[in-house]
């Protein structure tokens, strides 16, 4: 966290807008507030245009000569193809309801992080080139010329949006900044403006299978290592299979869950649950990434990566697909996958082999969220659980932005929590469920060079966590998102020391009583259960 100001400095946020008009001010590319430019090799790996060396802080971004034409044609094309783009350009009344809803605005005070103004950055160009009033009255009508400075401004602020949709919830017309960010980033990538973290993830996902760049055999290695860990802690060794044809389910998790702590414990949780149930499932080294990093660059790249899931399910001949805990991953699976790469007529309507429950809500896409799956198991009494094994955990639950506002999976994880944990406290109501705050690092913003901005964006969430941390002694924040599990540990270290992050299925596995299991004394992290702490030896 070098170079990041201390919390008491960072929180001195000035919400007073400057006297200079927003049309004339330019962004300052200060270290910690922008993501680095992508190396050309990543663009080449996925055939993205204008791969070149450039630097965000450089004056000259080495844009193609006809960049302006490319951008304007790109806008025209998208205005014709996306009703959302056309409508959201036309109907904003600048009522300001969205202004203080954005975590980046709350954390920076930068007026261009008010969703309305972030959208105006695009809208001002739309007016100038695509509306009569903008052509006639120029600045007076809120229109302005497309210049390199405007393009740089787009880059700066479209990468200060995590596509969390909180603004869209409060907008009286449902204008969705996430949609505009996606389209705006598409435009930027048409002239080769991409960030290193996102493009490296996309490039790795594309050929290797996941964002960490682990090819199938390495993927297997990692999972086997996690099986070793499971065995060590519980005495039970899960036996996953890889690329196995004829399995009943294909299980797809976000790669964050087998990459690093604490996500790995969630993955161990999945493995143990499946072992307990004895279900017939397979993992795949080809469809080894549930998270869709392509979606953060363009709809097209999202589709190109998402293709793998259905195509692998088809090749392996599974009946349906089960998906792990992840945020944007589920927005894509829920709202885009079927349209992009469906229809999945080679799969069967999902039915739980254990309970016989038909997942009617997933009968077309044929992919079920693991929390829906597990909630159904618990409801039908198929899991023997010892809640007290999570008594060392005082939990709060963070609704990840995309499953909350792009799907609505609010009760399933809570139902599971209430069945595996005795100490559960909600954060203040204006910060949870559909009104939840983003972690501040989603949509490919979790780059190391971006820490300061991530801490700023994560402030509202961290602040609500601090509230329950102090009031109820909450020491763990549960979540159903791999990005959450990756980015909250440093965020909490900064804002709320003493908080841990935990996946829901890690807690399920803690509580799960296997038939004839050995006496368990620790959780998956090898921390003693409450009442099982080793006695301190006095001579030491």
């Amino acid at each position, binding site marked *: 966290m070098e170079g990041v100001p201390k919390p008491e400095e960072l929180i001195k946020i000035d919400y007073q807008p400057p006297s200079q008009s927003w049309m004339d001010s330019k962004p300052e590319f200060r270290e910690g507030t922008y993501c680095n430019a992508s190396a050309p090799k990543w663009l080449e790996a996925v055939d993205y245009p204008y791969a070149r060396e450039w630097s965000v802080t450089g004056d000259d971004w080495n844009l193609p000569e006809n960049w302006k034409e490319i951008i304007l044609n790109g806008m025209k094309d998208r205005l014709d193809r996306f009703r959302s783009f056309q409508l959201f350009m036309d109907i904003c009344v600048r009522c300001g309801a969205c202004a203080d*809803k954005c975590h980046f605005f709350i954390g920076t005070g930068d007026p261009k992080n008010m969703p309305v103004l972030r959208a105006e950055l695009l809208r001002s160009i739309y007016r100038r080139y695509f509306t009569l009033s903008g052509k006639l009255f120029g600045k007076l009508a809120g229109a302005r010329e497309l210049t390199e400075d405007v393009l740089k401004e787009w880059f700066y602020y479209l990468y200060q949006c995590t596509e969390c949709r909180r603004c869209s*919830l409060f907008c009286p017309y449902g204008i969705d900044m996430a949609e505009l960010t996606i389209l705006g980033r598409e435009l930027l990538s048409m002239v080769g403006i991409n960030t290193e973290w996102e493009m490296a993830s996309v490039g790795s996902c594309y050929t290797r299978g996941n964002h960490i760049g682990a090819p199938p055999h390495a993927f297997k290695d990692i999972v086997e290592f996690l099986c070793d860990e499971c065995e060590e802690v519980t005495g039970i060794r899960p036996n996953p299979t890889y690329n196995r044809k004829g399995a009943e389910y294909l299980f797809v998790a976000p790669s964050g869950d087998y990459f690093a702590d604490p996500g790995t414990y969630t993955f161990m949780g999945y493995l143990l649950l499946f072992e307990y149930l004895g279900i017939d499932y397979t993992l795949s080294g080809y469809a080894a990434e549930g998270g869709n990093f392509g979606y953060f660059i363009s709809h097209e790249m999202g589709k190109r990566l998402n293709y793998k899931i259905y195509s692998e399910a088809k090749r392996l001949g599974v009946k349906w697909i089960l998906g792990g805990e992840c945020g944007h991953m589920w927005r894509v699976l829920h709202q885009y996958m079927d349209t992009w790469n469906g229809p999945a007529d080679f799969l069967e309507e999902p039915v739980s082999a254990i309970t016989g429950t038909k997942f009617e809500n997933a009968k077309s896409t044929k992919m079920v969220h693991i929390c829906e799956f597990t909630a159904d198991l618990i409801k039908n009494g198929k899991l023997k659980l010892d809640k007290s094994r999570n008594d060392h955990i005082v939990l709060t639950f963070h609704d990840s932005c995309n499953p909350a506002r*792009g799907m609505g999976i609010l*009760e399933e994880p809570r139902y599971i929590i209430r069945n595996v944990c005795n100490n559960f406290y909600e954060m203040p109501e204006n910060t949870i469920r559909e009104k939840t705050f983003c972690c501040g690092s989603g949509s490919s913003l979790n780059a190391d060079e971006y820490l300061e901005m991530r801490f700023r964006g994560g402030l509202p969430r961290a602040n609500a966590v601090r509230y329950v941390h102090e009031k109820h002694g909450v020491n763990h924040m549960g979540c159903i998102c791999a990005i959450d599990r990756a980015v909250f540990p440093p965020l909490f270290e900064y804002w709320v020391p003493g908080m841990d992050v935990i996946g829901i299925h890690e807690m399920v596995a803690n509580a799960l009583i296997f038939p004839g299991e050995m006496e368990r004394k620790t959780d998956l992290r090898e921390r003693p259960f409450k009442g099982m702490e080793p006695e301190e030896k006095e001579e030491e």
Partner: protein
Amino acid sequence: MSFNFTFFVSLFSVVALVCIPLVGVGVGLEILFGIAIPYFALVLFLAGIVYHIIKWARTPVPYRIPTTAGQQKTLPWIKSDYLDNPHNTWGVIGRMALEVLFFRSLFRNLKTELRKAPESPEKGRIVYWSSKWLWLGAIVFHYSFLTVLTRHLKFFTEPVPFFVTMLESFDGFLEIYLPAVYMSGLTLLLALTYLLVRRIVDSKIRYISLASDYFPLLLILGIGISGVLMRYFLKVDIIAVKELTMGLVTLHPTIPEQDIGLIFYIHLFLVSALLAYIPFSKLVHMAGVFFSMTRNMANNNRAVRHVNPWEYPVKVFSYTEQEDMFRKQMKKAGIPLERDIEE
């Protein structure tokens, strides 16, 4: 654009709009201001709105992207939020009705404030509280405007439909002045003033405001004020007014013999200006809100496939390509292969 510039340009534009009929009718151009301009404005309004509606309707909705504001419909024993996260058309109709009739999303509005908190390590705490003022201002404005518009039907119908008369007597139940004071006129002006003052006083809103935000507020204020002046203070010949308006509506436009009064022509000209302005401005939200795909689509994505009319094939990295790349290592790791290594 500074605040002063955008605000005063808007204000002067409205003042100019008041002066135009003042001069024009003064030199005897009643036909222009009483007949030609209103017709022209109405045509612009209708054509413009229809243009926008056709433009939006013809643009495809590639993806089904409702913003979900409550529990999804999944397992039968989990209660889903039928209106805030609708899963079928009836739910969507309910959600849209709440949105259009009661401004559901604005009603959700919160105010966020970073407060000093000496007890916390970083000395700050963020608090949120329900803030319904904007909702109240907006809903009072829109319903007052609707009431005023409906009352005006009495100028365009003969006989006057019963609901207009009823509304009129209801609206004017406070008989504190003669002629009866209509509540809607007062609340309209009050709400407009609130919306305008809010835009000027709140530094954030002032910062995002364009001339096209001040201008319609000032213009509608002008319409309201001229209407109030006409009804209560600078009385006009009401029979002559109705003769003119009925002429317009029956497509037999005439300018009455009697002198109607300048204030009427000012009022009519401002209304014409507003009508003509709507399609070229943010005021198209009145039609646009119905098209908003984050509100008007059912969250049944995984149950019913949504088809994008322009979806095109993309370049993908196939399983075979991956196996070709890592066949040896995969075999060594014991992962099944499609095509084994040739010995």
